[in-house]
């Protein structure tokens, strides 16, 4: 490609032949206003606000910077008196149509327009066509188009009706510089800001994800809906985006496995009297956590559904925990995260915070001190399990509020506490497929949480050698405990690896192939899947490494072909005889 020389506002520069003036100016840091331009779309050149003066020899032309290809020797003036005069008039024209649009008003102020000569119109749309083009050129939905011509031109869907082709991607609203497009039905949005889902179709699963790479959510990605878009592809400088990739299942041979499958948040819909999912301002712990996150949908702002800042917040403890109807166990973390929430709400909004608790369980290091600090911060604690959340007011103070009905067991009275927002300190539950995982790994699973080999002596090991557990899959616990357990599990694995060999059980079972009839009764009985069938020899064989010598197979074998080493019948009888020696005598 040819390199050309040109001058912009007196600055001599070089560029590739036919690069647009706008691109060159932007590289030099020269500001040219644009309205209908978007880097992802072909230059459109209709708003004309990027008009600049171009001199080539004696010829002077006014051109639009966004699509004018620079050629050798041109001189561009981006802020000459003529440019300013033309832009000023264009802005006045835009104001005659859209007199109250911020982006236009800001530009107008920049160009010294105090009151436009053609008056101020009430429209919002400056007809820049970004929405139409993004819908057709990027999204490929072709839902939006221009209708009528001249002064009556407008952007609309076909016949002004809701189009079936609209996938509610929201791209049009996103690119609109004036905010003229609003999405009516938020729930239908593709890029829905779910409380727990990703903000965009492309996201890094979580901040600490390894590998730290973004993934595409097939469900909400526009490309997988229309076959177009691929904006990510265009903006990725290293061309790392590949929409053709498919999910693959990989087999990895390992010598040990640590299970850290985590927990599931208790679904408060099960407690219908709390109105979760009915009242928009009743949030679960995780929902609040997301809202409170600086990278969340509100940017860390605590707000009600209507965008207002809450003046009072109630936090209900033990939701789904210590509950006869749901989980009887204590989830161990809710008290402390509820206290954290209370503290943050106080700090960020200054709202009144009420905690409704059964017992405060602040057992960890520094926890109790934190509780006391909150007491001093004027967070209210009401002892009693909340009975109901309602929006039905009984008096004026309660109007428009959520009312928490609770028996205050300290004063022995039923109270109604009106608040703007309720946070349910939801408990921890085993993941839904915990039992399946347990089966896969041959470990046992109590009430959904995996069972450790020994509660005191082997808290991270399981009954199966080489399978370890860590974190909340073993039982509710907070982060320090989880980290400690994870460290322990990791070192347990590490010690196996560093030894380079494993000790196997000495007391295993063995099959006498002479006696084995090949009935395979034992095959399915082995809890450790250590028994297989040799199709060639038609006899059962036992894997010595896997066998733990439990003897189940030996006891079950109808042909007495399985011998439990060190626990043979003879040895057992001798032992019994020895035990009964005195009795016999």
């Amino acid at each position, binding site marked *: 490609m040819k390199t050309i020389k040109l001058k912009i506002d007196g600055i001599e520069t070089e560029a590739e032949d036919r690069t647009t003036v706008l691109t060159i100016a932007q590289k030099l840091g020269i500001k040219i206003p644009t309205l209908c331009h978007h880097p992802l779309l072909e230059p459109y050149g209709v708003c*004309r606000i990027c008009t600049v003066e171009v001199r080539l020899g004696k010829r002077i032309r006014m051109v639009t910077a966004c699509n004018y290809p620079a050629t050798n020797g041109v001189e561009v003036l981006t802020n000459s008196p003529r440019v300013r005069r033309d832009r000023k*008039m264009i802005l006045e*024209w835009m104001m005659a149509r859209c007199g109250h649009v911020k982006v236009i008003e800001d530009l107008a102020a920049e160009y010294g327009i105090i009151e436009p000569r053609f008056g101020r119109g009430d429209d919002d749309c400056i*007809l820049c066509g970004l929405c139409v083009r993004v819908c057709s050129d990027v999204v490929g939905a072709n839902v939006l188009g*221009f209708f009528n011509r001249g*002064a*009556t031109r407008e952007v609309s869907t076909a016949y002004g009706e809701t189009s079936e082709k609209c996938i509610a991607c929201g791209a049009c609203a996103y690119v609109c510089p004036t905010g003229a497009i609003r999405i009516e039905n938020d729930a239908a949005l593709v890029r829905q800001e779910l409380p727990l889902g990703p903000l965009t179709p492309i996201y890094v699963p979580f901040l600490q994800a390894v590998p730290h790479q973004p993934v595409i959510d097939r469900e909400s990605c526009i490309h997988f809906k229309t076959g177009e878009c691929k904006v990510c592809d265009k903006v990725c400088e290293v061309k790392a985006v590949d929409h053709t990739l498919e999910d693959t299942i990989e087999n990895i041979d390992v010598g040990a496995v640590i299970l850290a499958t985590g927990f599931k948040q208790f679904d408060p819909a099960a407690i219908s009297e709390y109105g979760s999912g009915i009242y928009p301002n009743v949030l679960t712990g995780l929902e609040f956590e997301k809202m409170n996150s600086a990278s969340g949908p509100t940017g860390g702002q605590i707000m009600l559904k209507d965008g207002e800042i809450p003046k009072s917040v109630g936090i209900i403890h033990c939701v789904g925990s210590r509950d006869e109807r749901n989980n009887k166990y204590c989830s161990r973390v809710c008290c402390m995260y509820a206290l954290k929430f209370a503290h943050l709400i106080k700090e960020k909004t200054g709202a009144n915070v009420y905690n409704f608790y059964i017992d405060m369980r602040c057992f960890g290091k520094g926890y109790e001190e934190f509780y006391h600090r909150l007491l001093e911060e004027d967070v209210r604690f009401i002892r009693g399990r909340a009975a109901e959340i309602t929006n039905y007011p009984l008096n004026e103070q309660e109007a428009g509020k959520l009312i928490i009905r609770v028996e205050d067991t300290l004063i022995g009275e039923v109270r109604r506490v009106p608040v703007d927002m309720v946070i349910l300190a939801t408990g921890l539950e085993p993941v839904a497929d915990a039992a399946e995982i347990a089966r896969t790994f041959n470990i046992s699973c109590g009430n959904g949480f995996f069972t450790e080999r020994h509660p005191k002596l082997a808290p991270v090991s399981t009954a199966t050698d080489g399978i370890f557990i860590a974190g909340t899959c073993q039982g509710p616990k907070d982060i320090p405990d989880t980290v400690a357990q994870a460290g322990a599990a990791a070192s347990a694995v590490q010690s196996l690896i560093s030894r380079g060999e494993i000790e196997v059980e000495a007391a295993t079972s063995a099959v006498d192939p002479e006696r084995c009839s090949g009935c395979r009764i034992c095959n399915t009985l082995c809890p450790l899947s250590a028994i297989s069938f040799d199709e060639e020899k038609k006899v059962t064989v036992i894997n010595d490494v896997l066998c733990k010598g439990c003897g189940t197979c030996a006891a079950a074998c109808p042909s007495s072909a399985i011998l439990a080493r060190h626990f043979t019948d003879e040895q057992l009888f001798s032992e019994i005889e020895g035990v009964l020696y005195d009795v016999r005598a």
Partner: protein
Amino acid sequence: MAFRTHVLVCAGTGCVSGNSYATATALENEIFKKGLAQEVQVIRTGCQGFCAEGPIVIVQPDGVFYCGVMAKDAPFVVEEHLVKGRHVKKLMYTPPEEKSPIPALKEIPFFAKQKLVVLRNRGAIDPEKIDDYIAADGYTAIEKALFHMTPDQIISEIKRSGLRGRGGGGFPAGVKWETCRHAAQHRGVEPVVVCNADEGDPGAFMDRSIIESDPHSVIEGMIIGARAIGCKEGFIYIRREYPIARERLLKALEQARDYGLLGTDILGSGMDFDIEIVQGAGAFVCGESTALMASLEGNAGEPRAKYIHTVEYGYKNRPTNLNNVETWANVPLIIHRGAHWFSSMGTGNVAENPWNGSSGTKVFSMVGKINNTGLIEVPMGITLREIIFDIGGGIPSGRQFKAVQTGGPSGGCLPESHLDMPVDFDSLTEAGSMMGSGGMIVMDDQTCMVDIARYFIAFLTEESCGKCTPCREGLRTSLEILDRITQGEGQPSDVDLLQEISEIMQDCCLCALGTSAPNPVLSTLRYFKEEYDAHINNRQCPGGVCKELIEYIIDPEKCDGCHACVRGCAVAAIMGEVKKTHALDKAKCVKCGACIEACKREAIRKIPRSYAA
């Protein structure tokens, strides 16, 4: 070197069919034989108008008129007249004994001042018969172009002829063809030729008439263009409002295909080419090249903002050569009769550089306040006065000429002081108007120039596609201002504001239609500023047109109470008994003018409105 004698041999269609070319060649040979080649020049001229007696030969400066001169007569004529100086009586025209009761066409200025090139076959051949066209020397040029000329030679011939685009821009056709051919070769993409028959200017019907009277000339021109540029595909983009023209084109295409003049292996030359007709939906903006391409592709007809021409990236991003109907219709004649013949008509010396002048003829549709409305073809360089007063027959009802609007709605209005200006591309542009596609609207002294500007701006506001801000909003705001001026509510600052709006539209609009749209305002501001001032400062309309600024009165001196006006008035604003002076109720009057039409005694007049009451 000067020749002492010129022998003019008619080479009009009529005489050529009487074999005048053979006569001319024979005369030339004979002159050479007699050693007169340095003294006598034989010139093949256009039609002398006396086709019935052809071939016609005129010897100048003697002014002797011979008719029916065949090749065999050449030796005798040369011997007798040119050598011996005796007139050849037997070949001289004898007028019929009885004088014709009606004037000859040549005596009628409307016909006399015209020069028919593009319209040569109008009124002469049946447009629905290809044989008629062939008989009128049609499809002779493609023989030359297909078998005896290389594409480069064709392009060079068109360039040397100085043919400039008749659609409005006046871009040299040969240069465009060359660019298109090069772009196609350079990129290895097959180019396309397109004929723009989307004539949208109000009052313009040149292209419609050409297609209706001689569709094959357009087709032949396109075949030659396709051969020069290297196209296999051609389109004629015609507006839906021209059903007859379209029908005739369809028939003509069918006939040409039957004769093998379109399709594969045209006339055995190995060239493939066919033409498809595409109908436009009647949007003015679709006459603009990029909008036309968009419409051709099936998209909304809107111009695109690109500083790359359609000749390089046009229809489906292929190099596209777009010329209008009249341009294409000129092509066969240029190839047939040579660039020199064409460039001898018109202004400037275009042989070296087609930008140097305006060669050939131009078809105009002449409408408005003029006696002979119609379609005319005149050589470039003719004056506006000749067109309007000689050909057009002047202004009807003894009114005064005020202005002529050329170039369609985005052209300009030229005043009387410009009547002696030659009509060519560059003079018109310089005067603030343009050639456009050739619409010409004549206005008399009862025209309000502010109202005219308002009318054209209103038309353009309707027709603006609305894509770019300056055109959409600039026209709308201009119209608002013009509306209030014509309603007597203009502000003193309005003239400057109009001027500023217009200048910025010229700077900033996206397509040529937008940048030329303020022309009606600019040209009327330039030549008729006093009318704006009268409207704004005195609340008066000098043309007596703007309804808000005039009122009707009945002159009691003249009114004889005939009651004709009462019957003519649709709103019953005139009262009065028969035979007594009538009275007009100003409150009811809607100023429609029906009473003025009805009054036989010119008793009803428009006067400036009095604001005292």
